Each structure stands twice: as C-alpha cells, then as structure tokens.
C-alpha cells in the first residue's frame, strides 16, 4: 500500500488525533489507525497488532503514542513497541507522540539509546497538525511527485513540469524547463520539507559551469519569476516568491493570492 502512515494511539477517536489524521489525509497520505479488539492488557494488544500490521502493510511511517492505555504498566508501552520496531525495521520512520516537553527518565533513556541518524523523532502531542506533517515529511525523506506551492501552483517532479491551476484544467508553464526547473525544484523541495530554510548559493550554482555561476543563477531566477508572475497574473518583486537572503542564498516564499 503506497504512502501509508500507521497511527497507533489509544485516543485515536480524540479530536487532537482526528485533526492530525485529517491533515495527513489532506496531504495525500493513506492513514491507517490501529484499533485492537480484545480483553487482554490493552498495551499488549496494541503491540501485537502494530507489529503485525507493519509486517503486512509495510507502511511509509508510523505515528506512535508513548502512553497506550490507562494501566500503569502501559504508561510507556509505546517505547517498548518502538524498540521492537527499531530492531526489526531499522529504516522505518517513527514519529513518537509524547506528552512530556523534555521527557521522563525512561523516554530520555530511549532517546539516548537510539542512533543519532535513526529515523525516529519525538513530538509534543500539543504540536499543530502542520508541525506533525512537516516532521513526518522530513523523517520519511522522499519528496512527492507533486509539490503544491499554493492553491494555484504546483510542480510535477516526474515530468519536470510546473502547472498553474487558476482555471479548471491545469495549465503548463512551458518556459520553466531544464536548468530553470532544476533550480525551482531545489527551492520548492527545500521549502516543502523545511519552510524558512535557505538554499545556499553553493547548492544552486552547481547547475552552472564557469566563473560566472552566480550571475547566471541570478538571471535564471529572474526568468523563473517573470514566467511564474505572467502565468499567475501578478507582478513578482524582489521580495516575492524567490528571495535573496543576505547574499547567502535563495529561499522560496509561496505567493499570497
């Protein structure tokens, strides 16, 4: 099953988990909620069903709560399940829902025992659905085939094309291709995973050869902005869409429309 996120939370019907689920659905993920049915200790049920579902469905990521149930022994059941997932599927991204800002001793110990590059991260349960989505995007690491910049603009990374969706049928922006598409894709994928992060000149200049790489890059950026401005029917100034920050690099700022 492609693009599947497993949600393991004993409060799966709660509004806060619901809001995250809805946001993930909007994002295009297939969310599957683990709901055990049985009389045994609820934590054990969650563990068995989660591990089984991971084997069966091979999801892209897991959203796992630390506390699974009200029993005292299940207070940290999520951490036990995490250790088992890490042992059996060391590359499966897991985002742990925690209710502690800095974590009680046991959670801190688990954090410490993980490899620094393990695809496991912890997030406060009060985090906004946007924060959860961004964290998952980075943990999973892959960029989708379609990167939506705003409601009217998206990139198709498969066909290396940019579309405007102001009319009913998406309209291709023909001018943005080749190196211009590569530059725009670099900026868009960085923004998609980490809004606010600047793309340094060094990463963008590799598309050009010769001494005038910086100048060529500036020209291409200007051309991209002109093409997109024309397609969107707006005028894009120096501080719109792609901005130069302190002569360090460029950053994408989705246009407000």
């Amino acid at each position, binding site marked *: 099953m492609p693009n599947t996120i497993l949600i393991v939370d004993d409060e799966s019907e*709660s*509004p*806060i*988990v*619901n*809001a995250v689920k*809805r*946001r993930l659905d*909007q994002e295009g993920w297939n969310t599957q909620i683990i709901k055990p049915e049985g009389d045994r200790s609820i934590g054990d049920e969650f563990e068995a069903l989660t591990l089984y579902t991971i084997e069966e469905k091979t999801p892209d990521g897991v959203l796992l709560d630390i506390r699974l149930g009200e029993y005292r022994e299940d207070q940290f059941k999520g951490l036990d399940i995490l250790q088992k997932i890490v042992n059996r599927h060391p590359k499966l991204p897991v985002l742990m829902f925690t*209710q*502690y*800002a*800095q*974590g*009680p001793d046991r959670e*801190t110990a688990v954090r*410490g025992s993980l490899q*620094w590059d393990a695809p496991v991260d912890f997030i*406060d*349960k*009060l*985090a*906004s*659905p*946007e*924060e959860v989505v*961004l*964290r998952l995007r*980075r943990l999973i690491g892959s960029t989708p085939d379609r990167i939506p910049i705003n409601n009217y603009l998206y990139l198709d990374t498969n066909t290396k094309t940019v579309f405007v969706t102001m009319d009913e049928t998406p309209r291709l922006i023909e001018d943005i291709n080749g190196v211009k598409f590569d530059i725009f894709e670099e900026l868009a994928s960085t923004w998609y995973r*980490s*809004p*606010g*992060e*600047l793309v*340094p000149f*060094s*990463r963008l200049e590799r598309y050009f050869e010769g001494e005038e790489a910086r100048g060529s890059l500036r020209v291409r950026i200007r051309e991209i902005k002109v093409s997109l401005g024309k397609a969107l029917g707006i005028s894009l100034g120096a501080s719109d869409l792609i901005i130069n*920050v*302190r002569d*360090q*690099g460029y*950053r994408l*700022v989705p246009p407000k429309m």
Partner: protein
Amino acid sequence: MVACCGLIILILSPVLGQRSSDYLWGIEPLAYIATIMLLTSLLLMCLSYYIPRILERSVESANIDRRTTEKWGLLTQQYFELFHHDLGRPLRRILGKERELQLTFRAAKTEIHPEVQGLLDEIEIQTPSFRLMVSNIQVLVQLESPTVPTIQPVEPSQLIRRIVDRYTPLAAEASKEITWWSEPAEFGLVYSDGAAIEHILTNLVDNTVRYADEHIEIQLTKNLTDFFIRVWDDGPGIAPYYTQHIFDRGWTPEVARIEEKTSSGLGLFIASTLAKKYGGDLTVESVVEPDIDHHTAFLLSLPIKGPD
C-alpha cells in the same frame, strides 16, 4: 616517642639538673621542656584521633544532604511530570476541537465569521506560549536539582528546523517571516544536550516572533572549538540600560517601568543559565529606534565537543 622522651626527662630532671649544674634552678628548665613535650605530644595524639572522625562525620552528613536534595529534586520532577500530563489533557481537548473546527470549515470552504476565526486563531497562537511556559517550569525544576548534563551527538540544524516548523505559522499570522541557514550548509554533529539547545532556542525565537517587525533570521555557524546560533530580528531594539538586566531572573522591561508584568521574566534567565551549564554563553546586542538599522540579536555559543 616525643611523649616518652618528655616523661623520661621529667622524671630524671632532678638528677640531670643537679649533675649539669650545682644550682637548683638548673632542674627547672629541663622540667619545663619535658612537660611541654609531654603535653604537646598528648595533644597531637588526641587531635590525630578525633579530627579524622569529625571530618568523616561531616562528609557523611554532606552525602546525606546531597542524597536528600537529589531525592527531593527527583520527586519534584516526577510530580511535575504528572502535573504536566494532567494539565495537558484539558488543553489537548480544547485544541483538538478547535483544530477539527478549522479543518471542517476549510474543507467545506465555508465563510467563517471574523470573530469566530479570531477566537480559533487565538487558541492556536497561545498554544506554543503555553507549551513553553510549562516547559520553562520543568527546566527550572531540573536546573535547581543537582543533575549531571546529558551529552550526546546532536545535529543543531535539525533542532533549528523543528523550532522554525513550530513558529513559522505563528509568524505568518502576524505577517512576519522566519529565515534560517547554516554555514557550512552541511553543518554536521556537535556534542551537547539537544533538549537544552532546543529549549534555549525556543525561548529566543518565541521572544523574537513577538518583537520583530517583519523579519526573523537564524544563523548557525562554527569555528574550530565552538558553534554559534544567532537569532536576529528587525524589531525596535532594546535600550542599553535594559540589556544589562535582560538575563536576570524574573526581570522584564515592565519591572523597570514599574508596570504590570506581561511575562514571567524566566525565559531568558533559563536560556542563559542553560547556556552556561553546558559550557557556553548567551549574549545580546541591540540597536534601538530611530536608528535605521534597529535590531536585536541574541548570540548563543556552545562548545562543539561539549562542556569540560
């Protein structure tokens, strides 16, 4: 040995004194010297017996005190974690309902009454402040407890990304922008306490988002021994007579103006204390309006290889 010599001389002093001198006064100095030797030796023997025992007892009582403080610190932390969990429950319900509403309205493309939208936004805006406040109290409890710093490999750029994730929507709501970068672009690992760095930065960015005019910049750099995180904003700046107190516990500009406090004044104090605990420092530099280059920049410096 000295005591024995002293005793022998004291006993023999009448004989020795009379032999060495024909006069009686010759006996006296010998008797005095012998008595002094005897008494000094006895005193030293007593001291050598009692002092180690007294010292041992004081070390033991210090250990008991330390264990009691540690136990108290641990208990306070545990109580606070319970309190934090219970405090979070109603807030999660309120927030969850608010977020569901927002998503429902968005999905239905319904026009929301501005006052309702304002109310929903306010709940969302106050959440990070609440998270930070609870977290500040927790860190304060930890700082008061004699705990050993946890040093692990940390990727500082990941920590900055997380904080930017959290504050970007809030900044956008107030028409402000957060930009961040690292030099070099592939920054790598440092040895420190990730939770402490994240906490320091959260306090700095929370402040900055509040006071910036339009732009907030976070820059991550390093030299051979230290790494630096500079949090800059284009706000009105902080007057020099305020900057010297800005890291004091409980101090806020309202304290100086004898006005009602709008914050606890704990955030920057905690941030500065944490920076020092991990072998670094936190400083501030500011240019105030009407200077055209008005800004405030906080500079966090920490050792790459962890505290000594």
